[in-house]
């Protein structure tokens, strides 16, 4: 696909959908506190930007998400590596892993707020918890996916375990790890928002909550828009890093690995 013509068609389609939405809302007379027209949403967005309420909440949520992502993925990579390299550790940790993987992690948010308060810490912990599993699982699968022939080659050279890890298993696992990071990034954002819903003083999630209370539906839509843009940008950053580090993968095979290895589990 691609090409200027198709791009124009795409824009046209979006405009058409917005126009139909606008007209339908006007014709049916749905009240604004149920479904606002697009024009009202953009107006709410404009007001929010003008009165400067968004930035402080935006940066709070962004900080929570990024810190949660960092903490969660660093721990996930370390634990995933230990599990992948040691059958013994895997044997003893397996019951815990299975139990936590099946559990909807966001259900822990109320407890985490009770334990860690309304501030930044509880949001970071919740985001980290949700971001943890997709990367841990992909790290394990990726590190174990090195072909037997390649392992045999390294062994035939009398390579040490450390050398096999750094020269073969780790680069071999990178496509899986990046697929995991991509999910972890979005999951971290979800984790932060959910924790803000449960209890927070600042953040876009808390802002949605308070607007909901005031029946400011157009305002909520404007924040949803901001959140999807934020998600897109965060995802783009991971993708950029991926393309840089996975230079040997053509775009096609990269997509394939990403799709076949997206074993993220639940939020």
């Amino acid at each position: 696909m691609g090409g200027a013509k198709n791009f124009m068609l795409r824009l046209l389609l979006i405009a058409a959908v917005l126009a139909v939405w606008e007209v339908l809302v006007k014709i049916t007379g749905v009240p604004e506190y149920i479904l606002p027209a697009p024009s009202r949403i953009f107006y709410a967005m404009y007001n929010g930007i003008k009165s400067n309420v968004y930035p402080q909440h935006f940066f709070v949520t962004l900080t929570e998400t990024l810190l949660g992502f960092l903490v969660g993925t660093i721990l996930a990579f370390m634990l995933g590596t230990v599990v992948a390299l040691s059958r013994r550790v895997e044997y003893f940790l397996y019951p815990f892993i299975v139990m936590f993987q099946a559990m909807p992690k966001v259900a822990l948010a109320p407890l985490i707020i009770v334990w860690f308060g309304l501030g930044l810490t509880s949001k970071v912990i919740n985001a980290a918890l949700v971001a943890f599993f997709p990367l841990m699982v992909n790290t394990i699968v990726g590190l174990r996916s090195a072909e037997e022939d390649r392992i045999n080659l390294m062994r035939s050279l009398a390579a040490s375990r450390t050398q096999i890890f750094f020269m073969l298993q780790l680069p071999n696992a990178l496509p899986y790890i990046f697929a995991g990071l991509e999910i972890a990034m979005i999951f971290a954002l979800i984790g932060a928002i959910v924790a803000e819903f449960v209890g927070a003083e600042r953040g876009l999630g808390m802002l949605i909550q308070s607007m909901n209370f005031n029946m400011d539906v157009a305002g909520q839509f404007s924040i949803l828009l901001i959140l999807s843009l934020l998600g897109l940008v965060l995802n783009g950053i991971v993708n950029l890093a991926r393309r840089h580090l996975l230079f040997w993968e053509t775009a096609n095979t990269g997509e394939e690995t990403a799709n076949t290895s997206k074993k993220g589990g639940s939020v």
Partner: protein
Amino acid sequence: MSEMNRAAQAARMDSPSSTDVIAVDRLSLTYGGGASGVLALSDISFSIADGEFISIVGPSGCGKSTLLKILAGLLPPSEGQAKLNGTPIRGARRDIGVVFQTPVLFPWRTVLGNVLLPADVQGLDKEKMRKRAMDLVRLVGLEGFENRYPRELSGGMQQRVGIIRALIHDPAILLMDEPFGALDAMTRETMNVELQRIWMESGKTVLFITHSTSEAVYLADRVIVMTARPGKIGDVFKVDLPRPRPLDIMNTEAFGAYVKRIRVALNADGGLD
């Protein structure tokens, strides 16, 4: 098998001399334990003298690759043992170079990077090895491709990278598992000539597995024929042709006679695949 060959084989197999680099003694290997195990090699004995070039031919699935993996220290034998310079093989050794049946390249390393892998693993001098790698790259006609990635190469080019990777650390022993199987006939002949030249210059001991009887005869001092499952040593043929052998030696009567006898032995042992 002629009397002469039988005598030569007996002489070699019954009296392992002190110059034997590899000595395989009543080796057996079963894949998987218990009653469901697959007996891949059964009671294999032979030895290879220092600097000798041995070809092994045999039907598909007779255990050639398995034998090579045992000699490379990748697979412990179920029974019997294989010795290298008098000591039993336990684990991999740095003085062995292995060429596998498939190229086994790392997609994140360039051609040069793949060739240098053994040097990196063994911590050899970088500058010296780089020079050597470039010489090897030229030797197999890959100059201009040294900074490309494996996915940019044809199957035959990839296999050539796999071959010179086994030479980079200058191992005394080369174990080669059908290294030229994926090459076109022309390149294959060139590689045969080159391998003979490298072998004559370096005095390496070579174990060379192939499906091609003429390739086996062209290269080897002795050709070992293995029988179908479970793999056993069949006949052993000593090839008395002068070195260096030019390619057109393949058109001579003497050469043809060797090829014919080995084919007959192969067919008697269960046929070529």
